[in-house]
């Protein structure tokens, strides 16, 4: 927000100058016993205080209005509906991401669960046939056994053609199921942009609130609440940069073995 740039610490220089010079004069008058003049100075001082306070309050009110307008939640503004729907839209979008990724995971696993028995079926039959084949080459096979092997190999070729083309289909289905990444990526980028925008406006409000505290001399007792990690806190983002967080399985293994596991 543009009005954050000219934020200042405490009072304006002209006000502090005036305070300083009048305070000096007040001290001098009191020392010299000119009490009537001193009283007038005290009145003037409190006027300066009041005026600067009014000015600050006026400034804060204006900034607050601007911040609220930037936030697009001004109840009188026509943009209200749009702004609110932007937030609802954001949560709808995230729900869409959860749904899309869930669907993709399930579709992929459907294909995998369908493919796995076929792959192991091919492997098992090929293993069995190759053992028989070795026996045939060593001429250890009876004619009846050979006829059986002949029939089995025939069947195997038929099922091999079918199963491998099924596997191929499943693999390309799995490939296509990854298309969620493109769609969810776009959605997440949009939501991220909105969150950043909201974050900026919130920061503006925080800066303004701290300024109010400054000129009114308010001190907040903010209790430090420690979140218990017993309930679980979910995945750690940027684990490498965080203290007290493992960055992978190797770290976990090292930690556990240091505990005697």
């Amino acid at each position, binding site marked *: 927000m543009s009005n954050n740039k000219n934020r200042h610490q405490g009072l304006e220089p002209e006000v502090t100058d005036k305070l300083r010079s009048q305070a000096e004069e007040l001290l001098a008058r009191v020392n010299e016993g000119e009490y009537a003049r001193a009283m007038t100075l005290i009145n003037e001082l409190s006027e300066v205080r009041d005026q600067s306070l009014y000015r600050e309050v006026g400034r804060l009110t204006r900034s607050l209005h601007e911040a609220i307008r930037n936030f697009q939640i001004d109840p009188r503004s026509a943009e209200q509906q749009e702004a609110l729907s932007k937030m609802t839209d954001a949560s709808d979008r995230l729900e869409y991401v959860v749904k899309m990724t869930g669907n993709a995971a399930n579709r992929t696993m459907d294909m*995998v*669960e369908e493919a*796995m028995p076929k792959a192991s079926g091919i492997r098992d039959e090929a293993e069995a046939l190759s053992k028989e084949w070795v026996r045939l080459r060593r001429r250890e096979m009876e004619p009846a056994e050979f006829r059986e092997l002949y029939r089995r190999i025939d069947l195997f070729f038929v099922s091999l053609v079918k199963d491998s083309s099924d596997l191929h289909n499943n693999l390309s289905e799995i490939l296509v199921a990854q298309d969620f990444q493109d769609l969810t990526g776009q959605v997440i980028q949009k939501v991220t942009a909105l969150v950043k925008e909201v974050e900026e406006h919130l920061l503006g409000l925080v800066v303004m609130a701290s300024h109010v505290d400054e000129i009114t001399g308010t001190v907040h007792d903010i209790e430090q609440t420690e979140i218990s990690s*017993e309930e*679980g*806190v979910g995945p750690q983002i940027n684990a490498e940069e965080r203290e*007290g967080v*493992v960055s992978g*399985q190797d770290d976990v293994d090292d930690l556990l073995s240091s*505990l005697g596991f």
Partner: protein
Amino acid sequence: MKILIVDDFSTMRRIIKNLLRDLGFTNTDEADDGNTALPMLKTGKYDFLVTDWNMPGMSGFDLLKAVRADEDLKSLPILMVTAEAKRDQIVAAAQAGVNGYVVKPFTAAVLKEKIEKIFERID
């Protein structure tokens, strides 16, 4: 060998179930949090527990403590498969008596290694 898989996300349960099947463990059941899992475990039908940490209702950590506190279940091997990656959490899980800790995202090889290690110790 009957295994109970506890995770609030059905996709993760399905992944673990498939990986376990690949390792030769075909007899598995599923539960979506500790509250569902604990009564199932108390039937005494299970030989191994694979659980997530962060779940609504009863967390995997509470489930771990509940199992260790139960006279009939306390020696049940437990593998934690979780995204929880804080050192103090891993230490807490170890102190509560977990038998293995796999941090998500994980690979099939890691899961296999940890499960084999747990059974090696038991045998």
